[in-house]
Structure formats: structure tokens, C-alpha cells
């Protein structure tokens, strides 16, 4: 059983964002540093999930507003993850030295993002909506990244990923776009590391079969 001090020290070692989080708790204006650090990651996750520029912006906004509001409760909610036996980049189940790149804050933030995106999907199922740009054949003229991603959207790889079941797709996006370790993905999705490994492996097999089918 870890004492409070030991647990705090373990968390301090595990969480690379500990300093930023503590600063933001003392002064909420300091949340800006965390926001700038993770904006692109959260936005990318939302964009690949929702496949719409404006929907991704709305989801990103909700994620960060919720995170700011919930920051005082962060440690308690992330507690179960910080006690995970392994937190290495390779995600091995054998005990390892803590990963210097690990961040429980990132896990917590992406849990919020996962819930926001899931709500958005539920909302879409209830009320099908067409993006305005799609309806009018427009694209944001001032957004180069949007245009670049729109081109990528046409790629066979992205289409193959879009066809994956929800849990596999989410795991692949977290792994390839947000470059999370297996342990971090497990924390976000609430699955075991073994389950995440199998999810990604099966997703890759599906993508491979899809690409092979297109080529043939």
C-alpha cells in the first residue's frame, strides 16, 4: 500500500504535465499552456472521428471548456490510471521504469474528448445533418490545413480506417495520429493493454485486406 507521499511522488514521476497542471490549478489563467500543448492533438482526434471541420471545432471547444471546469477534480479521476502496473511506451505488461513522456493529464483530457465525440455521434444518429460546405459544395477558403486533410480524406488508407468498427478506429487514431502508447490508449478507452493490442492488430489486418482489395 502506497502512502500519500509515495503516491504523490509516483504521480509526479509519471505525469510530465504535473507542473503545468499544478500551475493551472493555482491560477486558471495558466491553463492556456496546457491548451496550446494539446490543441492539435484533441482537434485531430475530433476531426478524424467526426470528419467535419466545424463539428471538430465545436467538439474541441467543448473538450477544453470541460477540462478547464473539471481541472480541480482531475487527480481523483485519473487516480485509477496512475496506479496501473506498467506505463512504458512499449506497453509491456511487465513492470517497467515510468515513461518520461507519459501524461495522466493527456489520458484524462482524451477521456473527455472520447465522451464528447461519442455524444456527437449519438446526436448525429438521432438527427442526420449535412455540413454546410458539403451541402453547398464549399470549403473554407482560408484554411490550408483543412484543404490538405480534405485531400487526405480521399486516400484509400483513410477510407479504410473510416470503415473500421468504432473501437478499432478510435484505437488506430490514438495510436497513429496522437502517437499514444498502448498503455495510454488503454487508459483513454478504459480497456486492458492486451485488449488494445488486439484491437490495433485486428484493425491493421482489416486495413491491409481493404487496401489489398482495392489494388486487386
Amino acid at each position: 500500500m502506497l502512502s500519500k507521499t509515495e503516491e504523490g511522488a509516483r504521480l509526479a514521476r509519471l505525469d510530465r504535465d504535473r507542473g503545468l497542471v499544478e500551475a493551472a490549478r493555482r491560477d486558471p489563467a495558466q491553463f492556456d499552456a496546457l491548451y496550446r500543448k494539446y490543441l492539435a492533438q484533441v482537434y485531430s482526434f475530433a476531426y478524424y472521428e467526426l470528419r467535419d471541420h466545424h463539428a471538430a471545432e465545436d467538439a474541441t471547444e467543448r473538450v477544453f471548456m470541460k477540462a478547464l471546469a473539471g481541472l480541480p477534480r482531475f487527480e481523483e479521476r485519473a487516480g485509477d490510471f496512475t496506479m496501473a502496473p506498467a506505463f512504458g511506451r512499449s506497453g509491456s505488461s511487465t513492470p517497467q521504469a515510468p515513461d518520461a513522456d507519459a501524461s495522466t493529464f493527456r489520458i484524462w483530457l482524451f477521456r473527455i474528448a472520447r465522451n464528447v465525440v461519442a455524444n456527437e455521434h449519438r446526436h448525429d444518429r438521432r438527427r442526420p445533418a449535412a455540413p454546410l460546405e458539403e451541402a453547398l459544395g464549399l470549403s473554407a477558403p482560408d484554411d490550408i490545413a483543412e484543404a490538405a486533410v480534405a485531400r487526405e480524406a480521399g486516400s484509400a488508407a483513410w477510407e479504410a480506417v473510416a470503415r473500421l468498427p468504432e473501437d478499432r478506429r478510435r484505437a488506430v487514431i490514438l495510436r497513429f495520429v496522437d502517437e499514444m502508447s498502448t498503455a495510454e490508449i488503454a487508459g483513454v478507452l478504459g480497456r486492458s493493454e492486451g485488449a488494445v493490442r488486439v484491437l490495433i492488430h485486428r484493425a491493421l489486418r482489416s486495413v491491409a485486406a481493404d487496401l489489398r482489395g482495392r489494388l486487386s
Partner: protein
Amino acid sequence: MLGDGARDARRTELYLDSLVQADDRRALDVPVDTGLDPAVRLAAQRLRSDLVRVHPSFRFEEALAARLSLGAARLRAGLPVEPAEAPAHVPATIAFLRLPTSTAPDVDASAAVQFRNPLLSARPPRPLLFGGVGVASAAISIGAVYVAWRWSHPSPTPMGRAARAAHGSRVTHPAGRSRRTAVLQGILGVVS
């Protein structure tokens, strides 16, 4: 003891880790695991190169930063991050709207009507299309509110008060008064 599936999954994971490490080292050669299914290896390389991270527009980034800054100020003051009575977001999508290409208006997004609600001014402006009925309704509502405000706030100048007193003392035809009242009620949406 690992089963075949778990062993393959572990092997795939190690391969993905080596891809990430190769990128971190800026290594030009792609690691090769001969024991891994070549199709899986190829799919991993493809996803690694195609699934790029996307950054939102600078305009959105700064607008959201401003909103978060306001939220932080509210937190410091002991208030919730967002006011409870905040109006709902203006939807960025239009439900069921699928205009055929041939009839879609040739609209330049930058020239489209910009809706700027002062309560949402920190949000990035987005082009929205309004129907004629919506614009007319909003204009009538604003006009009605102004008329009602002027009705209840006499002019502070002596001339204005005198004009108002003279107007009020005029004998008005009952039909005219009722017609004017009916028009005002119609504008304000009052049902008698």
C-alpha cells in the same frame, strides 16, 4: 502463456514502436520484422504516413483561447466557467439541407452573412445563410423593442416632453387608435 493472436498483437505493437522510434531518430530506413505479416507491415507504414496530425486554424485557436481566458477569470471569481444562461451554440450544420448542385447559389463563404452575437463574440465567426423570413423577423423584433422602449422613456429635453404632451392631448379617432394598437400588438406578437 500467450496465444497466437496475442503473440501476433504483441509483435505488431513492437513493430509500431520501432516505426515511431525510427521517425524520432529521423532514420530513412524503415525497420523490417520478417516474422510479421507483410500485409500488416505495409498497412502500418501506410497509416503512419497518411494519418497526419491536423492543426485547426489560427483564428479558431485564438478565439478559443479568449473564451478559455474568460472562463478562467470566471473561475477565479468563484463562478462557473460558462454562465448557465449562455445561449446555445449556433449550429454549424443545417439539418437535412441538401441542395442540388444546379440550384445551389454561388456563394462566396467569405462574403456570406456573418452572425455576430456579442455573447459569443469570442467564438470564431462562421458563415451562415439566413432565410429572408428570419432576417425580417429579427428586424421587426428589434424595431418593436425600440418602439416599446421609446414609449416608456420620455425624452429628457423640454422640447421632446412638450411634443409628447401635445401629441398625447390630441383627440384621436377611435378607429385610428385601435388600428395602431392592433399593428403594435401584431408586431409584438400579443394576442388579445
